[in-house]
């Protein structure tokens, strides 16, 4: 059969698969349906090496592609059917868009003559996704497929990365292909990276030379650009401390003496205090998100503010800056490094060390099992040599605080969108992308239940992912806000009805369930999970139910208002976003 195929003309879907191969695609995460059947068929008829990972829910496919992309730097690929299949991916597309993750989403669509006529499983996916994609296409002609695939991968992966969607009507994917497999791109309006402005770099060097209390703020952009060497070199040359955003974890090893860890709402006290007291802040690839700046007009009010970003639309968006340079972080830093020298920061670093000693990250050791302690022990056992994905909530912030990250692309979390349900499927994607690495996902009992159907997906591929469920039987982060700001009135946060996650895991073929109840067993159970490599392993950790995450800066408040610990007095309701 196969030999006949090579002589007979291709259809659009077969050309699509050829083009995906040409882009180096290894995996497609997806789930089929009527309008996508020709594409799924082409995965068989072309005999391609691209492996289809069959998911159990399309949201999971999008998060897997996202996790794969963040763990490898290569675009993740999603393939789903029209209508509900496509709309199920939207949360995942939005999540990737918010965090600048390269992704290509292929959606089936009804046949072109039926578009706009409410055909079965028709949805205006092109329109529905427009606000959450970097770019999108509705294909009309099979012969356009190669150019569009090329453009889609180029757009997704360059400049500020992001998701690109291709909506593929069934008559286009099954129509005869008579075009060129490797045509040129046609993107006259797309200029993703600007040349580095030498004058801007000199102004930044000049501003730096005058600083005695500098702070470098490294974000996801520094990681995407692969600028970790340059950031480290800059920090060491200047002798300046570095704090990172949640997504910037790993740009500089968090074990480095100049690392302050994460800043912001639940960042370290010493990072936040350094930002409050600095005389210069230089962001490299962060977008001054509201989670890190608190009250925008009070953020580093008296400091010189510098912004390096590949996206010109980020400059002066959240805070006005004195100096900026638009460009790829690595290129800008390469231009900057020869122009800077050591600053007189001895006193400054001593002051910060004082804060480090006075306000370390800590947790009470008395009482029940502490999520923080489990993470602390996990770090001590693995020394940062694992890939970590997280879900969203208290456990996410504790993971960010206690799992120090040493290398880039090792800490994967939904930052901008804060999407519950992200962690576990993202770990599946990460494990596919990094088969040799040990992958852990830290999830809450709430978020895990949003996408745990993907246990089947992990079992089928025998992925040895370690799933640590920090089970507090609450939507913990919301409960914390209700406790602190709403007189502890609990409303819709009690997760009665949770399954026994360990027994649930055991019911999947090849998965293992473990239960952790006592502090004394932490290492033993973590070790058992590490030793199990025939499939996913779920640890149900029955944690203290009403533990809170500190430090905390109430949303919309200036960094000065950071709470190191639980305050005695009643707090005002936060004015900031969510």
């Amino acid at each position, binding site marked *: 059969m196969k030999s006949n195929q090579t002589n007979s003309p291709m259809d659009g879907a077969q050309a699509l698969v050829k083009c995906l191969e040409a882009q180096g695609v290894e995996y497609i995460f997806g789930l089929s349906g009527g309008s996508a059947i020709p594409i799924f068929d082409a995965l068989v008829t072309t005999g391609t090496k691209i492996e289809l990972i069959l998911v159990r829910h399309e949201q999971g496919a999008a998060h897997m592609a996202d996790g794969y992309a963040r763990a490898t730097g290569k675009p993740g690929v999603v393939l789903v059917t029209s209508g509900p299949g496509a709309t199920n991916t939207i949360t995942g597309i939005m999540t990737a868009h918010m965090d600048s993750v390269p992704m290509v989403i292929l959606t089936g669509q009804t046949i072109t003559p039926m578009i706009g006529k409410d055909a079965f499983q028709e949805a205006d996916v092109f329109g529905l996704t*427009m606000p959450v994609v970097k*770019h*999108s296409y*509705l294909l009309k002609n099979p012969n356009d497929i190669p150019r569009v695939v090329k453009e889609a991968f180029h757009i997704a992966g360059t400049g500020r990365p992001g998701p690109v969607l291709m909506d593929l009507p069934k008559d286009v994917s099954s129509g005869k292909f008579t075009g060129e497999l490797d045509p040129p791109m046609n993107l*006259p*309006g797309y200029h993703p990276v600007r040349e580095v402005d030498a004058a801007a770099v000199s102004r930044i060097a000049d501003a730096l030379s005058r600083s005695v209390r500098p702070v470098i703020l490294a974000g996801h952009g520094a990681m995407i650009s692969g600028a970790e060497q340059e950031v480290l070199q800059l920090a060491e040359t200047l002798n300046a401390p570095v704090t990172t955003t949640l997504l910037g974890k790993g740009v500089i090893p968090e074990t480095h003496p100049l690392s302050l860890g994460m800043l912001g709402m639940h960042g370290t006290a010493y990072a936040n205090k350094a930002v409050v007291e600095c005389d210069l802040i230089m962001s490299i690839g962060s977008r001054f998100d509201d989670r890190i700046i608190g009250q925008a007009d009070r953020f580093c009010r008296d400091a010189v503010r510098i912004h390096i970003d590949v996206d*010109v*639309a980020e400059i*002066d968006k959240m805070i006005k800056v004195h100096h900026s340079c638009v460009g790829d972080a690595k290129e800008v830093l390469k231009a900057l490094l020869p122009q800077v020298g050591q600053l007189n920061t001895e006193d400054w670093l001593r002051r910060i060390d004082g804060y480090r000693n006075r306000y370390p990250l800590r947790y009470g050791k008395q009482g029940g099992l502490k999520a923080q302690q489990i993470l602390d022990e996990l770090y001590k056992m693995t020394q940062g040599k694992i890939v970590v994905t997280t879900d969203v909530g208290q456990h996410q912030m504790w993971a960010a605080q206690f799992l120090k990250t040493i290398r880039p692309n090792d800490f994967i979390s939904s930052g901008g969108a804060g999407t519950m349900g992200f962690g576990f499927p993202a770990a599946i994607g990460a494990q596919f992308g990094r088969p040799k690495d040990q992958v852990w996902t830290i999830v809450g009992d709430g978020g895990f239940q949003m996408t745990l159907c993907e246990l089947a997906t992990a079992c089928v591929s025998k992925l040895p992912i370690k799933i640590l469920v920090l089970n507090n039987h609450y939507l913990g982060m919301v409960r914390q806000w209700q406790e602190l700001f709403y007189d502890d009135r609990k409303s819709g946060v009690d997760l009665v009805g949770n399954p026994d996650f360990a027994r649930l895991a055991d019911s999947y073929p090849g998965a293992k369930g473990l239960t952790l109840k006592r502090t004394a067993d932490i290492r033993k159970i973590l070790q058992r999970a590490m030793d199990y490599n025939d499939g996913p392993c779920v640890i149900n950790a029955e944690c203290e139910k009403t533990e809170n995450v500190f430090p905390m800066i109430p949303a919309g408040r200036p960094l000065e208002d950071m709470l190191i610990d639980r305050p005695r007095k009643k707090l005002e309701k936060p004015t900031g976003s969510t």
Partner: protein
Amino acid sequence: MNIEQNTHTLSVYVSNRPGVLARIAQVFSRRGYNIESLVVSPAKDGDFSRMTIGLSGDPDGLEQIIRQVGKLVDVLSCVDHTDDSAVVRELAMVKVRVDAEHRIGVLQIVEHFACKTVDLTDTSMIIMSTGASEKVDAFIRMIKSFEVVELVRTGKVLMARGDQPT
């Protein structure tokens, strides 16, 4: 006038592709800007289109919005010509209900503003006014002393003067 300060005229040069108008409109609507006028037409090269967008809204956020429009894949350039030396013109058609007896009064206004009558019946006239928006505004203010039945304006079109690109 306050309104003047908050009115901006942008020229956007785009690839002529489906969805480009929706993408641009979304950038403005998401931030609560109101598009007052919009002209889209093929550019010199038919693969591209020229849009002239008249806007009102908070001038503070506009710079960032222009950058957001500029970064859309199908947008080649987005320039705010509000304070530039650019030629800005528009065209309006006004249908006035007027009988033979009062026609002369209408024609006086038409003559003063150098407009044209493009349709004439026993009971109505259509008058076409072209020129700078202020002139068209002034004409419309005057003609409103008669019974205006319908009013259609094209919205502004704009071209930068001299060697400046639009």
